[in-house]
């Protein structure tokens, strides 16, 4: 998928959502992440993909919600919101973590890398390219998490065999069961 078509898809989604604005707003105010600055908010700085972002969040806001709903970095996905699927995987100081299981306030002095931070300009990261070449996705819901986890799996050196990759990628589930192609893509990129 090119950056261009991705942009168009999101524009369409946004336009479509205006039809249900009323309910959307109602749920938004109910979710902690979307709540505007309140008395209980704290000012924090998050360093994401090389940029500092100042924002006010309630302490209960997870890193995942801060990324998606406050910084508009929606590449990081929310699957289960309880540590079980891996869709929300990001790198914290180069180590893979699940952003739904940590609070934004706890990650202030951390260098966060999300899927948006992998490409260098127009040049995709080798693992992103390998995912395309190996057709390692269907719906794409798990893909950003798979790629972030795969990047770390490679840098950790856990790619000596397909079995080893499967074990060390076990924190990332794929409902579309693209596992063979995901393993192949990681093997390619690890070379």
């Amino acid at each position, binding site marked *: 998928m090119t950056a261009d078509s991705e942009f168009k898809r999101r524009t369409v989604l946004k336009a479509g959502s205006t039809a249900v604005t009323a309910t959307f707003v109602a749920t938004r105010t109910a979710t*902690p992440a979307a709540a505007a600055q309140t008395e*209980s908010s*704290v000012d924090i700085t998050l360093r994401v993909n090389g940029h500092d972002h100042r924002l006010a969040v*309630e*302490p*209960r806001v*997870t890193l995942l919600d801060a990324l998606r709903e406050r910084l508009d970095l929606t590449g990081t996905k929310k699957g289960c*919101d*309880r*540590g079980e699927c*891996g869709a929300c*995987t990001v790198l*914290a100081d180069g*180590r*893979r*973590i*699940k952003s739904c*299981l*940590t*609070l934004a*306030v*706890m990650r202030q002095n951390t260098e966060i890398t999300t899927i948006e931070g992998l490409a260098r300009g127009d040049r995709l990261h080798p693992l992103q390219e390998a995912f395309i070449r190996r057709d390692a996705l269907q719906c794409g819901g798990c893909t950003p998490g798979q790629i972030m*986890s795969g990047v*770390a*799996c490679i840098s*950790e050196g*856990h790619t000596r065999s397909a079995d080893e990759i499967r*074990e*060390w990628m*076990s*924190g*990332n589930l794929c409902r579309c069961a693209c596992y063979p192609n995901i393993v192949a893509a990681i093997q390619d990129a690890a070379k």
Partner: protein
Amino acid sequence: MRNFTYAAPRNVAEAVRLAGQPGARFIAGGTDLLNLMRDGAQSHGAIIDINGLALGDIVQRNGVIRIGALARMSDVAAHPAVRRSLPVVSEALLNSASPQVRNMAAVGGNVLQRTRCGYFRDSGTTCNKKTPGTGCPALEGENRGHAILGGSDHCLAVHPSDLAVALLAVDAVVLTDRRRFPFADLHVVPGTTPDQETVLGHGELITGFEIPVTPLAARSRYLKLRDRATFEFAVVSVAAALAMRGNTVRDVRLTFGGVATKPWRSPEAEDALRGKPLTTTTITEAGRALVRGAVTRDHNAFKVDLVQRALDGLLRDLGGAR
């Protein structure tokens, strides 16, 4: 999740002072606490982030390995001294959760993850652990995952930690801000107060664990059986440490997960082996001794057989039994 105030103290004294306030709770990795708070199973007015404390080191000195409470599961598993001298600890950790969770979770938080079952987080059911005195639906309900050892009529939930089973097998000592005591004394069985899971006081901080380096601990292994190949809690697990003199078992530790309400050591099973040769007969005897006091329910009786087979398999591997 209810909102809370947040503090990130820089030293142990400050952390303990803040956590001593009513309603306060430490957070380390947050991987257990945040899920419980999200489910509404727990809520705390003040969260005390201990990640700024200097408690993350792993050092070996004077025949003791000291693991700081904030050392991450992944770092402990990969540490050369741990792999060499405490293989059961490294194996138990590598068989826990996922790489991401292991990068986040601290060993102190790991052994304090809550003992519970599926009913606990279900807001629509009663549960003695959630609200004391309301009853335990697991007794007559879904109890396949539940304990056959150490349970009571009040609660049957199993302690979920793999690491705790391993630490019990290597005679670990718990260090807190105010005292030190054997790891075996940390967890308590539910009895009539299932909401009470450890001997720690409110606001007591685990600062680390000390583990003696011994030939026994160096020959140790972990076997975990689960419903899928990986990224799953144990149905049954066994940690064993073995010291042989010729063909005779000089000393042994046998501890178990998935079958009991707390990390479970079986002195009876150990006695069945100590001073004896490791044979099919003695291993079978050890397994029988382990489950002699087992109490089963509708769906978990299979664990009685499964845990004995797991013990058998692990001891053969470790001891080369004939």
